């Protein structure tokens, strides 16, 4: 024990004398852990919200009966089934707007409700009121604590009681109250069935019901999984970049401590004891950095969670709590990741300590020779990853395979970068003229092994930025142009009731300045387990001329309005493997697919049929806002007349300009998290470069001192050092452009298609590359300022020491 202690103390003395290097290891590991654990905290929070929501839909052990067509059924179905002795419980669900924000209303009947589906607050009917307060005036409702806070002061809704088990933006109330709030008296959305209860198929057929087991209700979770996988992939990239810092610092520490290891071995420390001591050292570093990383991760999660919440609401329509809870399993997994990262970064160092013979340990040149061999091996491994990535692309057909292909591309580039830079410098060396230039390039090559990991970190961060920015940029352009065509109507209006909506449609059709009135309806169904919306189209020029189609049969619109054909969204095409000419059956007979259209941002698939057919086949289809086409200059006057003629709630009328602005805002918010992670990854890469340059400073003196002795001033040497670092960063940025484009292509052609169901065009943005190139040079410049200032202020006596030590 004493021997291990003194061995450890000797190892620790190195860190005491090299605090910057220690900081590099801790910062790298802490940042890596922070980004990883931060994103995991967000994912955990989102999943907890989904779990709460799924629990409310019926719980894991409760089956649901829902109408085969439409979204609601008469309440009499519930009465009939109960009278027949079947233990079912009614639920009504819908949404209302409160202060411009969506509030989901869930009406339940707690007495008949299966216990597995009952909210926590209604399970104990003791001190807080429980079921009696819920069922009697003033009908106390349940909501998540944050929703209760949001609704403070609202008198239109029943009084609220907080229930921590509920997801945000949801109000659970007695079914009668909910029907009133949702304006759907006498209707219910679904029935919950006690677990294990059999129900004859004839009974289901009689009432037009279908029984849905819990597994098929997880569609939203399946969709959001892709979003979380996306975040996790980004976090892992940042984690990998952080590890590169650690690996660089640990590798340097190993190289610089070779003499110490030799001394310890000659003083009688066995290879095993030395390895154990280095192992313990890594454990202490991992634990320290892990704790710091967790604290930072918590902060990162707290900052990003509102944006993630916005993204998930915008993309999938799911509510995620905006507040973070600290779960013990999150702490443990964060620490485990810190340990895994530390050992992944230090593993080869540990092995080298164990394997290196005592005398070889004293020869750093042997170590460097090993690095040259490693460069050749890395090139071989890079080629291997290129082949593997190609195979995954050709043979893989899943989101995971898409990410694995991307990982292969990143790994191949990371492994090949040092050899690529070395090759380029070798070519430059051949054509270089002038002693100083020749030395500069030769010195850059010598500097490469020490800086290569930091440059790889920069490469990964830059290429991820280029890839994601290209994808988001292409998406933005496509989305905005799609939005312009899709939101063709100048005004969208929705009546407060069915009667008012019909009256508005009729009134609008008579207005002299109105060119077209575009009423619409929508219904929900599930096809092959995929949630699908069925939306209507009306035979007007706006559809035939403006509706954006990706692909269509000749005469598609005429065929559609003929009633025997349908158009489908891109998502439906991908998820149900449907193409032009195929048939789709919505339960009302086969329809030929005659057109494909983009439907960005919609988590569900969509099938478009003529309005008349939708009204006939799905009588309960709900109304969409009616689009009104008129001269844009006349929008104000029309709205004034509309206001005078009808009492339409302000939230139910929106003009095209405002709607587009809202859509754009949703789009930008959706990618806010990605942008934030992009910036953080670049920040980590800058830290990698900074710490590498700083820790390499002492070793650089040995290279620079002879040139200084030959008559090159310290100031000039410092300038040359800066130029060398900037040149290496610029060369890395050049490699990052093609790699970034490969990533962008994988994102738009593989990952987006698998994750969201839409394919985007790949648009190149050279101005972005230029900006990033300048940014990377700027980052390199900033990272090298401190080491270079140190060099320019290095006393001649210290430079002379290089020669004294070499004696």
């Amino acid at each position, binding site marked *: 024990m004493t021997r291990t202690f003194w061995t450890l103390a000797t190892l620790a*003395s*190195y860190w005491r004398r090299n605090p910057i290097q220690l900081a590099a290891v801790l910062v790298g590991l802490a940042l890596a852990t922070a980004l990883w654990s931060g994103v995991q905290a967000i994912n955990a929070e989102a999943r907890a919200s989904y779990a709460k929501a799924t629990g409310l839909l019926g719980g894991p052990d409760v089956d649901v009966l829902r109408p085969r067509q439409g979204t609601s059924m008469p309440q009499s179905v519930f009465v009939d089934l109960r009278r027949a002795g079947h233990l079912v419980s009614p639920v009504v669900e819908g949404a209302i707007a409160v202060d411009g924000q969506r509030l989901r209303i869930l009406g339940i009947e707690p007495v008949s409700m299966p216990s597995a589906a009952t909210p926590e607050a209604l399970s104990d009917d003791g001190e807080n009121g429980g079921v009696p307060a819920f069922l009697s005036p003033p009908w106390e409702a349940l909501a998540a604590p944050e929703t209760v806070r949001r609704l403070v002061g609202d008198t239109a809704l029943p009084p609220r009681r907080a229930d921590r088990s509920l997801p945000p933006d949801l109000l659970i109330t007695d079914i009668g109250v909910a029907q009133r709030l949702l304006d759907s008296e006498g209707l219910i959305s679904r029935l919950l069935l006690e677990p294990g209860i059999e129900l004859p198929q004839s009974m289901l057929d009689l009432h037009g019901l279908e029984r849905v087991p819990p597994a098929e209700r997880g569609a939203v979770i399946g969709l959001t999984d892709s979003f979380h996988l996306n975040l996790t992939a980004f976090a892992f990239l940042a984690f990998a970049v952080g590890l590169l810092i650690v690996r660089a610092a640990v590798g340097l520490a190993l190289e610089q401590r070779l003499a*110490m290891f030799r*001394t310890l071995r000659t003083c*009688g420390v066995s290879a095993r004891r030395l390895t154990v001591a280095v192992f313990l050292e890594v454990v202490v570093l991992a634990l320290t950095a892990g704790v710091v990383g967790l604290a930072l991760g918590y902060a990162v999660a707290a900052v990003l969670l509102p944006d993630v919440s916005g993204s998930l609401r915008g993309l999938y329509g799911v509510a995620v709590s905006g507040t973070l809870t600290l779960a013990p399993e999150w702490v443990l997994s964060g620490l485990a990741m810190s340990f895994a990262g530390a050992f992944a970064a230090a593993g080869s160092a540990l092995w080298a300590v164990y394997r290196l013979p005592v005398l070889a340990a004293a020869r750093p040149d042997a170590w460097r020779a090993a690095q040259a061999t490693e460069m050749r091996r890395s090139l071989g491994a890079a080629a291997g990853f290129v082949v593997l990535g190609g195979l995954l692309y050709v043979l893989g057909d899943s989101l995971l395979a898409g990410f694995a292909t991307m990982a292969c591309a990143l790994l191949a580039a990371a492994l090949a970068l040092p050899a690529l830079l070395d090759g380029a410098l070798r070519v430059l060396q051949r054509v270089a003229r002038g002693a100083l230039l020749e030395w500069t390039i030769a010195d850059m090559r010598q500097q490469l092994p020490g800086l290569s990991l930091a440059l790889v970190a920069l490469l990964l961060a830059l290429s991820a930025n280029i890839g994601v920015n290209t994808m988001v940029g292409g998406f933005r352009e496509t989305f905005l142009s799609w939005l312009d065509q899709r939101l063709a109507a100048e005004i969208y209006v929705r009546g407060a009731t069915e009667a008012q909506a019909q009256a508005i449609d009729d009134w609008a059709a008579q207005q002299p300045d109105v060119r077209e009135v575009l009423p619409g309806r929508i219904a929900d169904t599930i096809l092959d387990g995929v949630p699908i919306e069925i939306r209507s189209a009306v035979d007007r020029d706006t559809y035939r001329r403006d509706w954006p189609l990706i692909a269509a049969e000749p005469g598609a619109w005429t065929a559609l309005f003929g009633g025997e054909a349908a158009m489908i969204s891109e998502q439906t095409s991908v998820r149900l493997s449907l193409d032009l000419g195929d048939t789709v059956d919505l339960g009302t007979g086969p329809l030929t697919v005659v057109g494909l259209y983009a439907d960005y941002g919609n988590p569900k698939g969509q099938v478009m049929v003529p309005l008349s057919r939708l009204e006939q086949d799905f009588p309960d289809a709900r109304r969409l806002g009616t689009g009104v086409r008129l001269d844009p200059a006349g929008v104000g006057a029309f709205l004034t007349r509309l206001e005078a003629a009808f009492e339409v709630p302000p939230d139910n009328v929106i003009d095209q300009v405002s709607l587009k602005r809202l859509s754009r805002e949703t789009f930008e918010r959706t990618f806010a998290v990605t942008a934030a992670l992009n910036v953080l990854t670049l920040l980590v890469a800058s830290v990698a470069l900074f710490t590498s340059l700083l820790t390499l400073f002492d070793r650089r003196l040995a290279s620079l001192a002879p040139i200084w002795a030959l008559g090159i001033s310290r100031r000039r040497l410092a300038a040359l050092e800066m130029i060398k670092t900037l040149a290496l960063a610029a060369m890395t940025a050049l490699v990052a452009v093609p790699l970034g484009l490969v990533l962008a292509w994988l994102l738009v052609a593989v990952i987006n298609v698998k994750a969201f169901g839409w394919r985007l065009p790949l648009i190149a943005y050279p101005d972005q590359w230029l900006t990033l190139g300048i940014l990377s040079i700027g980052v390199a410049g900033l990272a090298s300022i401190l080491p270079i200032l140190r060099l320019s202020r290095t006393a001649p006596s210290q430079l002379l020491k290089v020669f004294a030590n070499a004696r």
Partner: protein
Amino acid sequence: MLQITDVRKSYATPVGTLEVLRGIDLELGAGETLALTGESGSGKSTLMHALAGLEEIDGGTIAIDQTVISALSDRELAAFRRDRIGIVFQQFNLVPSLTVVQNVRLQARLSGRLDAGWIDHLIEALGLESMRARYPEQLSGGQQQRAAIARALALRPDLVLADEPTGNLDAETGDLVMEVFLNLVRETQCAFVMVTHNRRLAGMLQRTTRLAGGRLE
């Protein structure tokens, strides 16, 4: 004390096998001092490393106080070296992040046999009192080598091995260091083997032997 019998060592090189030691036999008693001389590349350092258990031999035996070290495992060898042998290298081999006194105490601490009084005596005898808290980089070459000598003797080892201990020092400093070193070796009563090119330094030791063509002359 030290018995070397038919020690052989060769290296594989790109041009074939290079036989460095071709059957070395040598005996050295406790308190005896021996200078090992020879041309560069004659195998002096290889023999020295083999004696310290830092290099494996191909054949023969090396026994120190009747323990055949060439038969020990890495772990046993490390323990033997830690408790019984002191080594001084040409490059000093001090731990740069430890102070002079920490460096001197290092091996004794690892061995669990720290004799603070003896170490203070060594530090004083080697003229390092004012440098106890300094780091190696703050010392001259001669001072660093004196610290390395103190570390080698801190444990009162049975055998002290020195590989060109004054090779990095000027003649005057080298002589001064050597004089103090030998005094302390005598005081410790250990066996002492020193590799050197320098005939004058070799003459300061009781016996001298020359290594040439892989054999002792």
